């Protein structure tokens, strides 16, 4: 049962930010609402004001240029990302991730901004975007700022956003040369959230040595996290199966998963190890093929 609320439908971002500034803690923002409405229907979340930004078309865009990289507006749907030609060309891993995010119905209505702001550590976009070194542009009545995605999450369902701030845009730098990103979540049913998920981005130099590695774990702690020890295993080395194995072990040790009915803590760690190894290898193999 949803508790009653006052429904506000701003006509512009400016108006939305003014409403946010006015109602601060007493309001919630709904965009696609594919996650929020579930908890509201369970009675777990109540709010006095609900600000609906789903209709804000000024935030519905996908822009790309080789210099500035990719910019996705907050109200862009998952489905639009999935079907974007430029994203398919430049960031195939994003399309791949979107294909596996819930179901078509959810992707048709759910938005990237809503997903990131919801801060579910089992969400798909955050690990991939973090691996791609993305930043989030947030705004409030006072102004705008950008936050790197790997600093965006502070706790389970908590972000670094202040009251009154709204996700406006996701920014992804243009792909670096000899870089590839691979993502896999482990789940029994394709459309489910991952029991755990791993995104790995590898950059190699001409000689095949690992220049940079970003390993991001999903649902392995209260937020999606960088596995920095695992990254350190790879960076500066000629990559081999033995190293991938070692990186997996490191990731499996540094994550902090919680056991639940779907998987024990031990199993989650094990899966993190396996997926990190596999994804690191997959990203490396792809990177080798890249120009």
């Amino acid at each position, binding site marked *: 049962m949803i508790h009653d609320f006052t429904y506000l439908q701003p006509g512009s971002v400016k108006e939305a930010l003014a409403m946010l500034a006015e109602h601060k803690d007493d309001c919630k923002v709904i965009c696609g609402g594919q996650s929020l409405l579930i*908890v509201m229907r369970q*009675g*777990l*979340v109540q709010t006095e004001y609900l600000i609906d930004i789903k209709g804000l078309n000024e935030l519905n865009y996908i822009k790309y240029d080789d210099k500035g990289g990719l910019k996705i507006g907050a109200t862009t749907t998952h489905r639009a990302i999935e079907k974007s030609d430029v994203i398919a060309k430049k960031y195939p891993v994003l399309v791949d991730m979107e294909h596996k995010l819930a179901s078509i119905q959810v992707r048709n209505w759910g938005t990237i901004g809503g997903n990131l702001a*919801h801060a579910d550590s089992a969400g798909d976009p955050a690990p991939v975007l973090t691996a791609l070194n993305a930043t989030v542009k947030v705004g409030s009545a006072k102004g705008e700022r950008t936050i790197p995605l790997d600093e965006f999450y502070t706790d*389970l*369902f908590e972000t670094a956003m202040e009251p009154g701030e709204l996700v406006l845009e996701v920014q992804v730098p243009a792909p670096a040369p000899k870089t590839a990103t691979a993502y896999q979540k482990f789940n029994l049913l394709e459309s489910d959230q991952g029991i755990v998920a791993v995104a790995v981005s590898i950059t190699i130099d001409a000689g095949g040595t690992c220049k940079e590695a970003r390993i991001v774990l999903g649902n392995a702690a209260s937020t999606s996290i960088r596995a920095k020890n695992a990254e350190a295993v790879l960076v500066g080395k000629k990559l081999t199966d033995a190293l991938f194995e070692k990186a997996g072990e490191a990731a499996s040790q540094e994550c902090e998963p*919680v056991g*639940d*009915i779907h998987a024990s803590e031990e199993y989650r760690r094990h899966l993190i190890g396996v997926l990190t190894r596999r994804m690191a290898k997959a990203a490396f193999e792809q990177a080798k093929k890249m120009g």
Partner: protein
Amino acid sequence: MIIEGSFTVKAPIQKLWDMLLQPETLAACLPGAEKIEKIDETTYDAVMKQKVGPIKVKLAFRNKLTNIQPPTHLELEGEGEDVTKLGHIKQKTIVDLKEVGDGQVEVSYKSDVSMVGKLAMFGDRIMKSKAKDVEKEFTKNLQEKMKSVV
């Protein structure tokens, strides 16, 4: 859900024991505790507020000490409810204090917490990870507090 762990504190065991039984200690150490009230020698009422992202719960708890063996063993049982009826929580906790030499006391605890209602049904994963956080913070706070007393 079982929460267990242990830590050591450098303090006389009796002093630790006395402190543990003071509501103020618990109130100060338990994150989110709004009120802890001693009803009688063995009964405490507590109100705890917890927040996980957008989800806020306020739990009203009654705890009873069921087995007290000063200064080494303590058992308590509690039952409570979220004020908006999101869930019903029961807990059974055993705390043991043991002198491990060198003026150190090892405090070990084991809580069996069970929940029913929307919170538990829907938020098993959320609640479990939150409980872990609360536990960590409580232990940290308690250790701090003990240090300051000793």
